[in-house]
Every structure is written in structure tokens, then in C-alpha cells.
């Protein structure tokens, strides 16, 4: 396959195969296959309320309908984001929690420390995960696994038998395209990889393309755009915080809401093909007013795009900014998200 490999979160990961832009284009037009086995998966089984899980995240676990999943946060006492994650309601008393690779050991320890009961297990090593993403992914999945896949709506999943084992097929992803995340016992993941690639509409894509795809639709990358020093309020992610329930970090967030944030996430487009990059300065009137947390050349838009944090008064759409780094300087304008608005994610 001739993949360029690199270490990531303690795993050896494929960064690229044919090339980042070619893989990106394939995902936007056909179906791209990503090896995402590095992500962490935990199982909680028990009573969500008496076991303490209900208060762990910024959203309610018990109110997630069976067969649905929900995105949100694990916060520290200061309201900083320990991780962003998705919880899958597998059974009345059982959920799967899917977390980022680099944060998985810490997440597990923090969650376990907040539980008062129930059975909590780390199934990361035993679980394989492949993402099939792109406008043709549904057709491919239906051909391989049957009509049941066709009916899965966005943020729902089904459990079904694949290759003789039980797998979860979830209509979620990180690309802004129609797509699926498939969780399967690790010993079958290579067989599933080969099966999916046997369809000529499917080509492999690496983490390099995945990063471009996610930024084009404005998804946050943990460790770059959000971290323990960043609250969901600053990051423009308040929609994933339910203030009608109890959760760790709620008091801190309420204080921030009352006092107002001191910095705010902005999305910006560059006038030209230069790429803003992580840690570049964001300037206004010759003064440094923030920094870039993610930036890239967008192949679909043909210009540089980025996300960063600035003083709140400079976060209005249309605000002109300058992105500076050493000899490099580029003019940019604050814009709305997503950058790329024509994805097939809800098709």
C-alpha cells in the first residue's frame, strides 16, 4: 500500500497513501477508507444515575435513545475540556464511549474516578475501527452488508453480524461527508479493511487527508483547537453543553457565562493560497490579538483556511485579520462555519 507512517498518540499511523490532496478529493467525491483503530473505546454497564455516569459529561446519557449517539465533552473542574467524545447508547443499561487516542488513558482514569458503581471497562485494544466516508459510502455499505445500512440516519447506529462477528455500524464521521464508523473486534479488522477496499469505489486515506477534511467543515481537533485550558464557551461549542443537568465543570462555566469569555474561537479565510498554520500569530492593527490553532490549504475552496482564538471584540464575521509568522504575512477575514458547505453528511 506504500503508506507513509508516523507515530500519533502512541500508535503507528498511516499519514498518507496516494497523497493528501488526491485522498481528500476521493473522499469528497467517492468513498475513502480510514484506519481509526487508535481511538479509545470504553464500555459502561450499570445504572447511569446511581453509577454516576449521568453527571460525567456535558450532556445527559440516560436521555440518549437506544441506537443513537451524542457528541459532547468531559470537563475538568475549571470547565476546561479533558476530551471531546461520542457516547453510543447500546442497551438500556449500556453505553460505548469513544474518545481520542492521546487522551484515552487519562479519560479512563478521570471517568472511573467519578463513577460510584456499574462496570467500566477499556476495550480499546480489543476493538478495531474503520471509517468509510464519502458520498458513495452508503452504496458501498449496502452492497456489502445489505439494505439495513441504507436506513441508518445521521448519529444513529445499528449492531449487525459482519464476517461472523458482531459489529457496530454508526452513521457518524469526521469529514463532513455521508459516512460510517464501523467498530469490529480487532482480530477481524484486517479482513474488513480488505473487504471494503475490494470495491473499486473505495480507496484508503490517511490522517493527513482526514485533518484537511475535518477542518474544511470546522470540526475541532483535540490538542490543537481545544484542550484543558479551553472551555466549550470559548470554543463556540456551547450547543453541546446542557446546563439543565449536573456535570463536572458546570459551576466554572456558569461563572464564565456571567463574566464573559476573554477569547473566542474564530474561523477565517485567507486571501490567497498560503496556509495559516498552528501557532501562527493573529494580528489586528499591528498588534498580536490571538493565535492560529488549525490551518490548512483547502483543496475545495482553493485558498487557506484556519481556526484560531482572538479577543471577543474581533470575532464578528467580516472582521479583517492579518496572520503573521516570521517572514510570512497573509490577509484574512473572519467567516462562518463550515468553510465547505456542500458536504453530503446529511444526505
Amino acid at each position: 500500500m506504500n503508506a507513509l507512517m508516523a507515530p500519533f498518540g502512541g500508535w503507528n499511523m498511516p499519514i498518507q497513501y496516494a497523497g493528501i490532496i488526491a485522498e481528500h478529493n476521493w473522499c469528497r467525491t467517492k468513498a475513502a477508507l480510514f484506519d481509526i483503530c487508535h481511538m479509545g473505546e470504553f464500555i459502561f454497564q450499570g445504572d447511569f444515575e446511581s453509577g454516576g455516569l449521568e453527571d460525567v459529561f456535558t450532556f445527559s446519557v440516560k436521555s440518549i435513545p437506544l441506537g443513537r449517539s451524542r457528541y459532547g465533552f468531559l470537563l475538568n473542574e475549571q470547565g476546561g475540556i479533558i476530551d471531546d467524545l461520542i457516547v453510543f447508547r447500546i442497551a438500556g443499561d449500556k453505553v460505548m464511549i469513544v474518545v481520542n487516542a492521546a487522551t484515552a488513558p487519562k479519560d479512563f482514569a478521570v471517568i472511573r474516578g467519578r463513577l460510584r458503581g456499574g462496570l467500566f471497562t477499556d476495550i480499546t485494544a480489543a476493538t478495531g475501527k474503520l471509517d468509510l466516508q464519502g458520498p458513495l459510502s452508503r452504496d458501498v455499505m449496502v452492497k456489502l452488508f445489505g439494505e439495513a445500512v441504507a436506513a441508518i440516519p445521521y448519529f444513529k447506529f445499528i449492531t449487525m453480524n459482519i464476517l461472523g462477528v458482531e459489529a457496530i455500524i454508526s452513521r457518524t464521521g469526521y469529514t463532513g461527508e455521508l459516512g460510517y464508523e464501523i467498530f469490529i473486534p480487532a482480530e477481524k479488522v484486517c479482513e474488513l479493511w480488505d473487504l471494503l477496499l475490494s470495491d473499486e469505489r473505495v480507496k484508503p486515506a490517511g490522517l493527513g487527508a482526514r485533518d484537511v477534511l475535518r477542518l474544511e467543515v470546522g470540526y475541532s481537533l483535540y490538542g490543537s483547537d481545544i484542550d484543558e485550558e479551553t472551555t466549550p464557551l470559548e470554543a463556540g461549542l456551547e450547543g453541546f453543553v446542557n446546563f439543565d443537568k449536573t456535570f463536572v465543570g458546570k459551576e466554572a462555566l456558569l461563572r464564565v457565562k456571567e463574566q464573559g469569555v476573554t477569547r473566542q474561537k474564530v474561523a477565517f479565510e485567507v486571501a490567497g493560497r498560503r496556509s495559516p498554520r498552528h501557532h501562527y500569530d493573529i494580528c489586528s492593527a499591528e498588534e498580536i490579538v490571538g493565535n492560529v490553532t488549525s490551518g490548512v490549504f483547502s483543496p475545495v475552496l482553493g485558498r487557506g483556511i484556519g481556526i484560531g482564538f482572538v479577543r471577543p471584540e474581533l470575532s464578528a464575521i467580516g472582521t479583517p485579520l492579518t496572520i503573521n509568522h516570521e517572514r510570512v504575512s497573509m490577509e484574512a477575514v473572519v467567516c462562518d462555519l463550515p468553510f465547505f458547505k456542500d458536504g453530503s453528511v446529511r444526505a
Partner: protein
Amino acid sequence: MSIYFTREHEWVKVAGNVGTVGISPHAAHELGDITFVELPKIGAVVKQFGVLGSIESVKAASDIFSPLSGTVITVNDALETAPEVVNESPEDSAWMAQIEITDAAELNNLMTQDQYNDYLKTL
């Protein structure tokens, strides 16, 4: 026409007192998909190993250094709208600038093709 290389992976093809400059296939491959090329201005005076321009890929941004001292007399404007040519044809279509050479003796500071090939093996 002779071709010479820098340790920073620029090449220069010398014909008379004019040097044509680009980046090596090795550099283009290492950078990956090229998304932007910053060319020098015509008339700019550059020093050997001084900054001539810059190049960006999906993965990285990098300066381009001038293999020789001189004055920029032509630039390859086509790269501004089609930087991917650097990946497709780094040693031909994707030349970046032509320089009127000030001091041919500076060629002694550069590597020949064979020397550059050996140098690549050490990286």
C-alpha cells in the same frame, strides 16, 4: 547545460551567465502536495544561499534559497495558479526563476548531480 544542487535541495541549470532555478524531485516529494509558490520579484538582487522565495505544501512551509548570487530576470508566473506542477515536473516545467549570475566561481560551493545523489543517500 550543467545542473548543480544546494544542500537545501534547490537546483540551478547554468547556460552562459544565466542560471535557471527550481527545487529537486527529492524536495518536491518530501514536501508532498505543493499548494503555493512565492516567487521573487523581477529585478530583485539575491545572494548565494539567501532567500529567493518560499514554497508551501499541505504538510509544511519552506523557504527557497538561491543557489547563486545575481539579479532575477524572469519568474515562472504559471506556478502561482498551478503550484502542483512542482510535484509533476520539478526539474523542468516547474523552474521558478532565472538569475543573471554575478559570480560563476560560486558554482564551486554547489554539488554536481553525482555529488547530490551521494548526498541524498546520507540523509
